[in-house]
């Protein structure tokens, strides 16, 4: 008879577990041996829907839970019992990584939202992987939300070596020559004050100093820091020559040096401004800031970069960096509401730069004006490449002459503004709702007239076409004009609510895309066969509802989430409904962002057509739940506008 203990029979890990892990990040980086070892040490457990897996601060986490089938939600319960939803995770996701890495108890409450099967990786096996596999620690730190990780990371860094991510690759590929901008220089004989004025004019933090007789010979450099420490702090006379304070000679790097070498030189010499030498001549200056900017993902750097532009051309490439930045925000776990607001801030600043440059170029306007943003821009809800929706409102001219001046000034101003926005990557509005359309470039009194007509004698069809105007906000210029117009609209609404009825009727006309059996209705034919229009069918009802309620209650916010927040604060909607609606709205915005990001990555023009077949079961279920909120929202609207 064979020996009773035949380990070889038992030592083959079930193929299913190996296959499962092979498909999942970051386990897919493991070699066969490690994968087999991992699979053999796993357990499989089943948690019926509604199982409370983790309790914050109580549960000792003994395993990494890898979801094979089903889904979980994680949430926080505060002292007063208020539940804040943090995340949903579905198949292939893990739970417990952070607690295991930090060696703490559960940091979130976790509950299964479906019948869920998990592979359980014992703590020790997981920590071994973290220690031994370079990709592992890095992966989990990245995938965990930024805030929570911040503390964990410092702890971890002390013991563990983490590999540089791909984000750092630019350090080894970009060359110094690619980063330099136009050389800004002044002769050594000019005064300190003149040099400072030049730096302000050029919006630069450093200035090269050349030989007074030979402009191509660079003799030194001054920086903001020199002005502060050598001039102001010492009370130096700023009519002195700039050569008194310049650093000389200038430290240089070769134009072919890669960023890594440049950064190394800066770090070793503690000099953050280096001149770039190309063919024996100084071609420009490179700063540590320029190199940091190459990461291109940090909203802050992008923000600073936009602000420092003094030419239209300088702005063109910057708006292209927004998708990259959004990607990293999404990966760091940013919520859709915050991300779209961030996009709005950056777009607002690009607009601000364009229009400021334009005013500088054209001279001051004859009357005060305000550049209005409407639609998704007005609501600060743009995703990627949203069409322009804008208009100009200007103060009523006092006489015929001023009227003519204003008309011709703003006509030219609008034309150029729209062109520059197109150059920066904001497509034209197909409906021509743009400031360059004379109809939408008008004085205050004309705008009041527009709204009076829309509100008091509504033609239902026209009203729908101009719906986006009701989301206007100031984008640039005299915000007071936009506020006055908003006050006027509120007064009109107080007198005449009938137009809201029409808006409500339209909102009720669109049934949520759920059939009676709660399965998805997708478009059956045409270009977008088998897809779901997440914007039109899913998001728009929320936007419309928030708009109608905001107009009714004179809430001046234009952002949908902000409108919902004010509505609940003022008691116009219940807290329960508010929670359901904002969750549903944000989820759909998130799906839309991820969908569009995927399209951009694959060279497809972003759209709003999601194929439900590409969603995970969990996403589908959540989307279905979001759609059922539309039914609630519609019945609420029916009770508010009973005759509709």
């Amino acid at each position, binding site marked *: *008879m*064979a020996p*009773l*203990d*035949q380990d070889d*029979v*038992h030592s*083959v*890990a*079930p*193929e*299913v*577990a190996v296959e499962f892990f092979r498909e999942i990040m970051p386990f897919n980086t493991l070699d066969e041996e490690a994968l087999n070892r991992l*699979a*053999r*040490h*796993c*357990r*499989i*457990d*089943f*948690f*019926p829907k509604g199982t409370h897996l983790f309790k914050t601060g109580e549960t000792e986490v003994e395993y990494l839970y890898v979801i*094979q*089938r089903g889904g979980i939600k994680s949430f926080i319960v505060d002292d007063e019992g208020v539940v804040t939803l943090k995340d949903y995770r579905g198949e292939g996701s893990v739970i417990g990584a952070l607690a295991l890495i930090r060696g703490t108890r559960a940091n979130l409450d976790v509950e299964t939202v479906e*019948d869920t*099967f998990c592979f*359980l990786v014992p703590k020790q096996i997981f920590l071994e992987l973290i220690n031994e596999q370079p990709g592992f620690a890095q992966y989990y730190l990245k995938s965990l939300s930024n805030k929570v990780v911040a503390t964990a990371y410092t702890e971890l860094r002390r013991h563990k070596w983490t590999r540089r991510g791909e984000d750092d690759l630019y350090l080894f590929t970009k060359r110094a020559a690619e980063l330099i901008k136009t050389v800004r220089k002044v002769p050594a004989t000019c005064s300190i004050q003149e040099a400072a004025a030049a730096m302000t004019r050029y919006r630069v933090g450093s200035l090269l100093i050349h030989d007074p007789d030979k402009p191509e010979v660079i003799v030194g450099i001054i920086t903001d820091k020199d002005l502060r420490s050598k001039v102001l702090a010492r009370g130096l006379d700023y009519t002195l020559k700039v050569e008194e304070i310049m650093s000389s000679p200038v430290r240089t790097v070769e134009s072919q040096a890669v960023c890594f070498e440049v950064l190394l030189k800066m770090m070793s010499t503690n000099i953050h401004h280096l001149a770039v030498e190309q063919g024996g001549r100084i071609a420009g200056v490179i700063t540590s800031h320029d190199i940091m900017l190459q990461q291109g993902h940090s909203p802050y750097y992008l923000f600073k970069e936009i602000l420092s532009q003094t030419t239209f051309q300088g702005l063109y490439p910057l708006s292209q960096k927004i998708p990259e930045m959004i990607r990293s925000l999404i990966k760091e776990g940013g919520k859709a509401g915050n991300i779209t607001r961030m996009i709005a801030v950056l777009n607002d600043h690009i607009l601000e730069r364009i229009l400021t440059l334009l005013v500088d170029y054209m001279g001051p306007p004859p009357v005060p004006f305000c550049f209005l943003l409407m639609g998704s821009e007005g609501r600060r809800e743009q995703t990627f490449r949203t069409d322009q929706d804008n208009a100009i409102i200007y103060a009523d001219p006092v006489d015929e002459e001023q009227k003519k001046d204003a008309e011709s000034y703003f006509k030219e101003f609008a034309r150029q503004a729209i062109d520059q926005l197109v150059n920066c990557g904001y497509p034209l509005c197909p409906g021509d709702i743009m400031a360059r359309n004379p109809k939408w470039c008008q004085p205050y009194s004309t705008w009041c007239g527009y709204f009076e007509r829309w509100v008091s004698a509504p033609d239902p069809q026209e009203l729908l076409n101009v719906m986006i105007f009701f989301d206007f906000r100031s984008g640039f210029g005299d915000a007071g004009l936009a506020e006055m117009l908003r006050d006027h609209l509120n007064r009109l609404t107080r007198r005449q609510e009938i137009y809201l009825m029409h808006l409500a009727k339209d909102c009720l006309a669109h049934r949520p895309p759920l059939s009676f059996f709660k399965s998805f209705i997708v478009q059956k034919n045409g270009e977008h066969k088998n897809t779901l229009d997440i914007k039109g069918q899913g998001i728009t009802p929320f936007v419309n509802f928030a708009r109608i309620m905001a107009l009714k209650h004179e809430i001046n916010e234009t952002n949908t989430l902000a409108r919902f927040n004010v509505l609940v604060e003022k008691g116009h909607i219940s807290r329960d409904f508010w929670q359901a609606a904002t969750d549903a709205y944000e989820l759909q915005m998130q799906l839309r962002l991820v969908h569009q990001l995927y399209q951009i990555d694959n060279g497809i023009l972003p759209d709003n057509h999601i194929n439900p077949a590409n969603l995970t079961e969990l996403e589908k279920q959540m989307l279905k739940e979001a759609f059922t909120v539309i039914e609630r929202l519609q019945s609420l609207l029916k009770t508010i506008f009973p005759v509709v």
Partner: protein
Amino acid sequence: MVRLSDVFRWLRKPHPLLVENKELFKNFSQSRPLSEYTFVVCDTELTGLNRRRDEIISIGAVKIVNLQIELNETFHQYIRPRDLEHTKSTLIHRITPEQLRAMPSIDEVLPRFIHFCGDALLVGHYVALDMSFLNKAALEELGGTISNPSVDTMRMAMGYKEAQFMDCYGHCNLSTSYNLNDLSNEFGLPKFKPHDALEDALQTAYLFLYLVKKMKQGKIRTLKDLYEAGRNVNLLY
């Protein structure tokens, strides 16, 4: 001289392994919490369903400890049947007759399997079939039967679905399929390759975990509860 017990196998004394096996269950109690029992979920592959003529050609089994499937304790073994000719048609895809010829015979494998089971309860989908073939082999090779109590996931599924239907409509509809594959689909369980003894055992283990935790709204605590939950369909025997 021919020994009587070689001719009439049932006269033979049971193999010490079976005596030991029987001893394990002398004081078997049904009242401990389920998580304290070890379960061995097994599936056998047969050359056919004729009890007299057909044989076991593979055994697959996984262990459930603390109501979790342990992936480091699995059992998977092909077995060389006595009648290889008869077997050819059954195994065409996964193993050639030559490979099968190289496998150990049941008298080698069975003791290892009994050892693997230890004091665990045996779980199977329509476990009676597996048990009857295992016991037939045990009687022939070891002169006795296996004492491990068994649990049938098919009967558990019947009990679960009956209770569900009763709740909804007040009457029973048992016309649905209780095939392992169909049940796994119905309950949305992860799917494994059918007709591989180990993967079928794993599939059955998933079904077992699912049912144990879903029956009676998760209020099944002890083996006795499990028995009572399926009493009307005679769950344990």
